[in-house]
């Protein structure tokens, strides 16, 4: 099964409970946590990549625990016509999705490698990168 990026929203009542490890232990899934955040109201948000034959069962388990499961529909859009190819986004990109092609010294964006961390959106001096939902 192809990697599947999803967004999980944890209500405050369960955000301190160990839940994700069940996906690995009980459902034999390979998971990759791309982003995790708990807000001041103790509600949690997590962006997760899930891979494995029992992925649907695992997501069913999450729903039973009260976790809201949604597909990740955000995407990062790099507006090349606004980009000056300065490169200021490249060393801060954690997955090298934004990178410089050498020796042309041109900035490129590999959307497959992007984990939507959004660091680049505000770091771009030309504001050439945006998030779309």
């Amino acid at each position, binding site marked *: 099964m192809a990697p599947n990026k999803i967004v999980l929203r944890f209500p405050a009542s369960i955000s301190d409970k160990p839940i994700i490890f069940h996906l690995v232990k009980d459902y034999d899934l390979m998971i990759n946590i791309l982003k995790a955040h708990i807000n001041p109201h103790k509600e949690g948000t997590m962006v997760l990549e899930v891979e494995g034959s029992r992925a649907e069962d695992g997501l069913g388990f999450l729903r039973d625990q009260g976790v809201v499961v949604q597909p990740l529909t955000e995407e990062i859009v790099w507006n090349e016509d606004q980009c000056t190819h*300065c490169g*200021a986004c490249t*060393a801060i990109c954690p997955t090298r999705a934004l990178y410089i092609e*050498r020796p*042309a010294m041109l900035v490129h964006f590999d959307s497959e490698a992007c984990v939507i961390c959004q660091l680049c959106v505000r770091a771009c001096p*030309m504001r050439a990168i945006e998030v779309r939902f």
Partner: protein
Amino acid sequence: MADKTFAEINAKIRAGKAVVLTAEELVQLVAEKGVGPAAKEVDVVTTGTFGPMCSSGAYFNFGHSAPRIKFHRVWLNGIPAATGFAAVDAFVGATALPEDDPLNTNHPGEFRYGGGHVIEDFVAGRPVRMKAAGYGTDCYPRRELETTVKLDDLNEAVLFNPRNAYQNYACAVNTGPRTLYTYMGVLKPGLGNAHYSTSGQLSPLLKDPYFRTIGIGTRIFLGGGTGYVVWNGTQHFPGIPALPEGAPPVPAGGTLAVLGDLKQMSPKWLRGTSMLGYGATLTVGIGIPVPILNEEICYYASRPDSDLYAPIIDYAEAYPNRKPGTLGQVSYAALKSGVINLNDKQVLTAPVSSYHKAREISATLKQWLLEGKFLLGEPVQLLPGPDAGIKPKSLEIRGSGRRNG
């Protein structure tokens, strides 16, 4: 070989016979043929840089309204412009911000619009909302106005940048424990990345590092139009820095004050810029032709990235507190490779100025020279070089009880 003169080279440019190379092409030619033959063959070398340059701005004359006003305060798209000149003159600085900008109250601030963006909007021909306040005089009775203006409506619009084209610049790193938001971009903690902002072997003042050809009156590519070097830039401290053994003695620390008609320029080469947590600024495109008058000039103009070094500066501690010292030097060849070795750590590098655009500027200026539509401006006076021994002065903080005089 006898030195060539500006007049001889200009005659060749007019006749369409000048040999013009970009600095990248000269690097290659000298590597193949040597400095002597290259100096004989080549007349002009073109350089380029395209990076954020905070000490930039533009002054305008807006023409007179009826009844007349004498500007006491002026805002352009909400950005305060400097008044204090004659009635309808004003200057907007690249880093000026709206008076109601949240700044860094919610750190890091975004600084989405500032003086640099006003300049870009004017150059792009977009309408700019203008507000002005006067205090009313017998000759200038109006007290306020609000209108929309475009670049073509103005009498004069002049880009006047007090400090541009830094000869060399720091490679910025962060040894501290938290992310830093600087004019050199976002610096991750614990040497998480290294940012630099010079086009290296294409950078104008690294190609005539002793100011043998650049001075007051040098004609340049500025913001897509024609501009001039009008003075040395502020903080012009040309000197020979500590360099690794074997490196050619290339000075650093020189700067330029440049000026040109904004109406000739293009938003492609003047871009409003937002540095997260730092502020707004203007990214400026500059290209300078270096006439190859003799072998010495050819030698320095042909130094490759592997011979040019940037000092590594810690923005966690040393820079903000004005502490001297560097973490060493690193060549532009290493910086451009994308990774450097620092304190036994592989550190990813990224530029803040666009090498791609710098290359395009050097190629455009070359084309202008080949077409004979751009002649060299012979300086009426060269700028001071390292021999002038200019020493930086710093601002001392004195007690409030002390009075002058």
